[in-house]
């Protein structure tokens, strides 16, 4: 017969406490080893829901499964194609970042990007005409996430734009993301001037087809492997992609330079891609999307599968609540500003790029990228603390993505809604900042967290989904 209560009565107890520290002190007085919880009350109104979810017998295994799937998911870069072809995106429909939103509530940068897309698609000749058409409801707006795609910042994808295509062969999933336009005045930050539109046309006619030839000739590129290496080279995969971008270019160069195209076009494509420190971001994001996609639809799991912002609302979805969005007003990032821009110029949080944090990199891997504090603000201890704090709200550690300074500990992976609600620790996101006014472009970069309301709504819905009476 095995010893009852797991041998509790047979060994000297080692105790963990939550609550009054006098009890921990009394134990220490008896020379008992004690670990104290730095306990704080949960997010407002979440206590009864937390109690219900905590007792859900499915939860532990469901979250374990979510973590397993997230870390097992593959991410192979396989193709570059127009969105109309890859996503079946029909004319008259634009994709955008974040949870669903209509034109009336759209923020400046999203409006700017939508106007740019109208001009780019030839659906309007002037910005005014584009705005009128959008306000008149001529265009269908749909979140990228509803088509398993992701888009940085405004995340606007129109049918003619070319997109990267990534495959998770383990779970047979596909994800897509637009091509990165570089920094400065770009569509994803809400700019729509002639240079923005001209660049988009060049990307469509020159860059996209060349990248398509290059990737088709090179064969699948293991993006997950690049992420694991870039984390060991000082990138965190959201706001710092320098090593990742160079490694991607290294993989593509041999077949890019032998592609069927004019040498000047190839040279321009190489120069453009090499000059772009965020060249890799648009592959890292769909790789992360494939990871979280694998965790979708697990009843009883409290793991977050989506965090996304449209510049007005921040929205999350969870493994245990299907397609339902839980939204709250997006916060405005705090950080460093470009040129003469200041806090008043910044738009609230925007973009699908928080998929990186959802999958365990970005802000969650900040300790791997101490140099990022020069870009987003803060100091090196903050970067270390950010990652270590995220372990408190995640269900596991990534098996492939590791942080050298933390002795190669896996990155915190799989945000647990109940842990967020219990501790009040909100996910740490590194992000770019878009100008508040349509047409401005990027104004800075910084740190931001989701509104707590997303998590209090989600925990209530998860509690309601627990089977049984009550």
């Amino acid at each position, binding site marked *: 017969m095995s010893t009852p209560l797991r041998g509790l009565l047979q060994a000297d107890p*080692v105790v963990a406490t*939550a*609550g009054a520290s006098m009890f921990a002190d009394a134990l220490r007085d008896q020379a008992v080893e004690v*670990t104290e*919880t730095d306990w704080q009350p949960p997010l407002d109104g979440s*206590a009864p829901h937390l109690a219900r979810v*905590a007792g859900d017998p499915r939860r532990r295994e469901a979250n374990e499964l979510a973590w397993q799937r997230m870390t097992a998911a593959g991410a192979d870069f396989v193709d570059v194609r127009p969105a109309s072809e890859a996503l079946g995106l029909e004319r008259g429909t634009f994709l955008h970042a974040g949870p669903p939103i209509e034109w009336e509530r759209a923020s400046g940068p999203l409006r700017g990007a939508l106007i740019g897309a109208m001009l780019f698609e030839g659906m309007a000749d002037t910005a005014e005409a584009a705005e009128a058409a959008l306000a008149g409801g001529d265009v269908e707006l749909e979140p990228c996430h509803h088509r398993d795609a992701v888009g940085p910042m405004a995340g606007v994808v129109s049918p003619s734009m070319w997109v990267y295509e990534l495959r998770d062969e383990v779970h047979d999933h596909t994800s897509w993301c637009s091509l990165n336009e570089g920094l400065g005045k770009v569509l994803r930050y809400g700019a729509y001037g002639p240079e923005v539109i001209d660049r988009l046309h060049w990307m469509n006619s020159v860059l996209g087809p060349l990248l398509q030839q290059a990737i088709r000739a090179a064969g699948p590129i*293991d993006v997950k492997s690049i992420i694991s290496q870039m984390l060991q080279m000082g990138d965190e995969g959201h706001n710092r992609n320098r090593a990742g971008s160079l490694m991607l270019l290294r993989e593509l160069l041999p077949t890019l330079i032998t592609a069927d195209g004019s040498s000047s076009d190839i040279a321009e494509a190489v120069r453009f891609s090499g000059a772009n420190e965020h060249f890799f971001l648009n592959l890292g994001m769909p790789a992360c999307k494939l990871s979280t996609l694998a965790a979708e639809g697990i009843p009883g799991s409290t793991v977050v599968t989506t965090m996304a912002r449209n510049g007005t609302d921040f929205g999350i979805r969870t493994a245990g609540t299907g397609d339902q969005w839980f939204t709250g007003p997006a916060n405005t990032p705090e950080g460093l500003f470009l040129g003469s821009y200041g806090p008043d110029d910044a738009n609230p949080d925007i973009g699908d790029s928080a998929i990186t944090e959802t999958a365990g990199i970005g802000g969650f891997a900040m*300790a791997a990228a101490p140099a990022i504090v020069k870009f987003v603000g803060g100091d090196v201890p903050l970067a270390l603390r950010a990652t270590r704090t995220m372990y408190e709200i995640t269900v596991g550690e990534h098996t492939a993505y590791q942080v050298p300074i933390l002795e190669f500990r896996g990155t915190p992976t799989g945000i647990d809604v109940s842990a967020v609600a219990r501790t009040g620790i909100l996910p740490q996101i590194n992000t770019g900042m878009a100008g508040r006014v349509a047409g401005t472009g990027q104004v800075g970069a910084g740190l931001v967290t989701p509104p707590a309301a997303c998590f209090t709504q989600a925990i209530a819905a998860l509690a309601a989904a627990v089977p049984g009476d*009550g």
Partner: protein
Amino acid sequence: MTDHLELRSGAYYDSVSLMQVSRQVAGGNGVSAAQVAMATELNLEVIGAMGFTVPQGVQPNELVVAIRADDADGVAAGLAALDAALAGLRSAGSGAGGFGAAPPPRTLGRAVRAGDATLALVSVPGQHATVEAFDAIAQGVSVMVFSDNVPVEDEVRLKDAAAAQDVLVMGPDCGTAVVGGVALGFANVVERGPVGIVAASGTGAQQVMALLDAAGLGVSHCLGVGGRDLSSAVGGRSTRQALAALAADEATESILVVSKPPAAEVLADLEGYAAGLGKPVHWATLGAGRPDLTAAVESFLGALGREVPPWPHWDALPISATLKDPPDQDPHDASESDGSRREPRFLRGLFCGGTLADEAMLVAAQELGVGLRSNIPLSPDLALDADLRAQAHLVIDFGDDELTRGRAHPMIDPTLRLERIAAEGADPGCGVLLLDLVLGHGAHPDPAPELAEAIRGARAVATAAGRDLPVVVSLTGTRGDPQGLDTSGAQLSAAGAAVHLSNAEATRHALALLGVDRDGATR
């Protein structure tokens, strides 16, 4: 010689770590050479030079494992060493420090993992206790829930989840436990010994342990189960588990179950279960017509063939400064000849321990022949109003949920009770004051002087009004307690209180001072 070469994708390790891994694999039993490396061109050359044939098209991101061994067993040993070494790399990182201290754990589950704990203790506010307790159970450890105000349906869910994990929920509202000699919550310092206690009552368990200590008998474990465990709603879920664990425990020779008044059918059920455990189980379960705790301990000692000692007590010392009568005269005579004829005088029991209050009411009700008014009444018709006052015999439990909301337990913060003691001193209806004082871990570090002062004050007020106010204290403690049992007893007796270790004896003494005979008549 057997060569083994395999490629693993999706696993990136740095070269320094892999050098260590290679060395560990090469040290495997029967392994003659090994190289584990990322498939860079350089590494592939090294592996090729060792005589291995590397297939075409290997990606630099793949991990190459090359093992040369005497035979297949050697290869297996090498692969086992590889798995252990890679797992070691990951676990070395888990919880690793890096720069500075890691942030403290923010949930109990994290704390359990961080400290490799075998037991958890929850004392957060009641509405949050369920979540923390579930977290501990999910981590596979038993949990003591000190918190009160936890819904009974949560208690049932917690206990069912715990049973499925083969761990124990001690509580909620569990004040006392001793596990492997370690006192948790409010607990007295007892010698290790052969008696295992299952306690659905915190101060009841403390009283029993104090009596056993006085009888020279030690305790193996005292497993609290929460005051509601023997109710119909909870059905003895934790008691059953605790009984089974103590039955299997070699240090435990006999078991004593201590409880507030249990549900009859639950008690009957448990008695049946206990009969099949192969170890003697005795019951100290309070209830009308059942033995008090002292009597239960006495018959337990008898069953073990041990002598029942005289229970320690400290006589009330006359206080010359406040005494009008000569010391050789009974100090109570004056008031009885004076006051009690004009108006009725009542027992006033002011308690910190719920079970001690219960026991006092049971003993007093039997002696007085009438029920006592209380905030934790033995029957609903005896409930006190919110002001907790009545011209009647009454007992107040200052440790009850209602009186501890937003306030520390009176064993830690005695303010409310001290105020009431002063008020009773001024109340002509108060014929005798019965108080408890519980020592041990978790309690006030030195509560006797403050209580003695309050007793002196109340008696002085009564004396000034021409009355005498006898005081009896039920003092629960052991000789090992940090506060000092004898010192505390002496301090209280010096204040004019009669002090008893046995709560039942203290109650009977108080009734005698009130002038009540065993037949219930007032002299």
